[in-house]
């Protein structure tokens, strides 16, 4: 087991390494210049000193080696070009928890409501309630998030001043973005849960459990839920990785100081260290989540054995 995970860990490490390499060169291949806007109108000599400051005067492969060196020897993601003096590490360390907070709250809304609706729909299969829930679910999937967020903002902050428009710090600030984040999730999770639930409900062991005289409550929560959770967990864990990087749309509309805006802004400003730093962050999270998933599988589904006997 330990050996298996060690092996996976090494694979994961290589995956991230290759991702870094690909992104690094891909990024330098695209047009655009991180300093263009900043120093474009400055004398040549000033420009040069600026490029030199960020090591951008060297050939790309050299920049790559320097970067890799700093990364592996000191865990240093470098310094942002757009925000001079700020280390990418610190920006991530500050922004990721904020993004994650919105993500977790949104996911919590999405998962709890989605699961509930999905289960209701499954039990009422073929009835109007089922159709209604599924229609709502589909509808929630079909609205672009920026439209929904804008409408939400308009009604709950401008029209009825229930929540602050933007800002960060209190719980009230997180409500709207989490709602907007959760909405789509409700639909996705409800649909997923419904089909999984129906699947499990049709299994013989559910009938067998009932035949032992279990109550409806126990059958629902101890047998069906337990078994329906496995597939759910497998789709949620990778999602958990991505909540740390936030969503650009919501973070822009609600001015949340998370990572999402930084990410898109970094890409469009060609803030190389920021882009790579965040890419590493995201892919590490993703790869880790896959590892965790494997681990969780073993925990929640006894049928899964990592090594055949």
């Amino acid at each position: 087991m330990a050996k298996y995970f060690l092996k996976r860990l090494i694979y994961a490490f290589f995956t991230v390494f290759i991702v870094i390499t690909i992104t690094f060169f891909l990024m330098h291949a695209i047009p655009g210049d991180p300093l263009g806007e900043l120093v474009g109108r400055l004398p040549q000599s000033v420009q040069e000193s600026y490029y030199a400051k960020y090591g951008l005067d060297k050939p790309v492969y050299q920049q790559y080696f320097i970067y890799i060196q700093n990364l592996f020897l000191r865990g240093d993601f470098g310094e942002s070009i757009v925000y001079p003096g700020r280390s990418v590490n610190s920006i991530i360390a500050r922004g990721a928890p904020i993004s994650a907070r919105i993500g977790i709250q949104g996911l919590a809304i999405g998962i709890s409501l989605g699961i509930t609706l999905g289960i209701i729909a499954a039990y009422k299969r073929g009835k109007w309630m089922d159709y209604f829930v599924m229609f709502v679910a589909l509808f929630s999937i079909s609205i672009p998030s920026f439209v929904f967020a804008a409408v939400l903002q308009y009604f709950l902050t401008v029209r009825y001043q229930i929540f602050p428009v933007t800002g960060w710090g209190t719980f009230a600030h997180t409500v709207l973005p989490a709602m907007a984040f959760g909405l789509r999730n409700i639909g996705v999770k409800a649909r997923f849960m419904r089909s999984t639930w129906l699947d499990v409900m049709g299994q013989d062991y559910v009938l067998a459990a009932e035949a032992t005289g279990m109550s409806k409550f126990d059958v629902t929560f101890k047998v069906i839920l337990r078994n329906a959770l496995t597939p759910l967990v497998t789709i949620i864990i990778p999602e958990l990785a991505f909540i740390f990087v936030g969503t650009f749309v919501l973070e822009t509309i609600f001015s949340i100081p998370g990572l999402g805006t930084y990410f898109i802004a970094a890409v469009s400003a060609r803030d190389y260290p920021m882009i790579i730093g965040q890419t590493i962050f995201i892919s590490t999270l993703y790869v880790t989540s896959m590892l965790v998933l494997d681990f969780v599988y073993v925990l929640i589904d006894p049928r899964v054995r990592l090594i055949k006997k």
Partner: protein
Amino acid sequence: MSTVEKNTSKNFDFEFDSNKSLYADGIVRPSLNYWQDAFRRLKKNKVAIGAGIILIFIIFMTIFGPSISGHSFTQMNRQMVNKPPSAEHWFGTDRMGRDLFTRAWVGGRVSIIIGVVGAIVNVVLGLIYGGVSGFFGGRVDTIMMRCIEILGSIPKMILIILISLILKPGIPSLIVALTIAGWIGTARMVRGQVLQLKEMDFVTASRALGASPFSIIKEHLVPNVMSTIIVLTTIQVPSLMFAEAFLSFIGLGVSSPNTSWGAMCAEGQQVILFYPYQLIFPTILISLTMLCFNLLGDGLRDALDPKLRR
């Protein structure tokens, strides 16, 4: 083996049935081919058919809609700036006095093309990649899956943005950008299916008959992953349209003078308070289309589900 006594009864009811053909040996179901049968099942699904009809209508409108209104989608009109829907301009006009009805359908063209073509590209790529990986298995599979894993761990948004920047802006490059990340899921799914199908007895039978790998792929594997693929395609269309809308929101969508529903939503979102109709119409169209594609996809999934019915 058996002896039957001469029938002595005068009662007709109790005479042996002279019709010796045993009709139960016949087949109860009418003869329909697989697709006809699937279509028959699909037809019973009112919701899916409804969704299909709406989609056909929308597609029809994206083709002919712009010419119905009598306005060009780029024509500006100083006198008609930001006018709400009227008999002249059914969806109203935008900030430059352009007819939104016309623009909506022109934008629909782009959105739908991106959605449909993107989904097809996704599926074709995924089919080929996943098919090869699954069919050959072993080393090839391991390596190919590793590659996918790496591609999958590069943040999707980075890939999309990078690709849309490397290529010259335009619809084709948008499609490439949007599909670069999307086909991975398809490939994984196809691979899974192929791995499963490969072990099916009819493939073994084909091998026992001496069929070549190529003909096995062509005759057995491809047709059998087809239904999954069709469903997947319909489900991917909306997600691609969504991604395009997002790109439009961050300003990387289609380039002018072309527009798309996503771009129109992004513009409308800016003036939601003042001219809500500028947001409402494209939003309704985009949502309706997504809804219909999803519903159709669900319907197709049910209809095409190759549950080897017993």
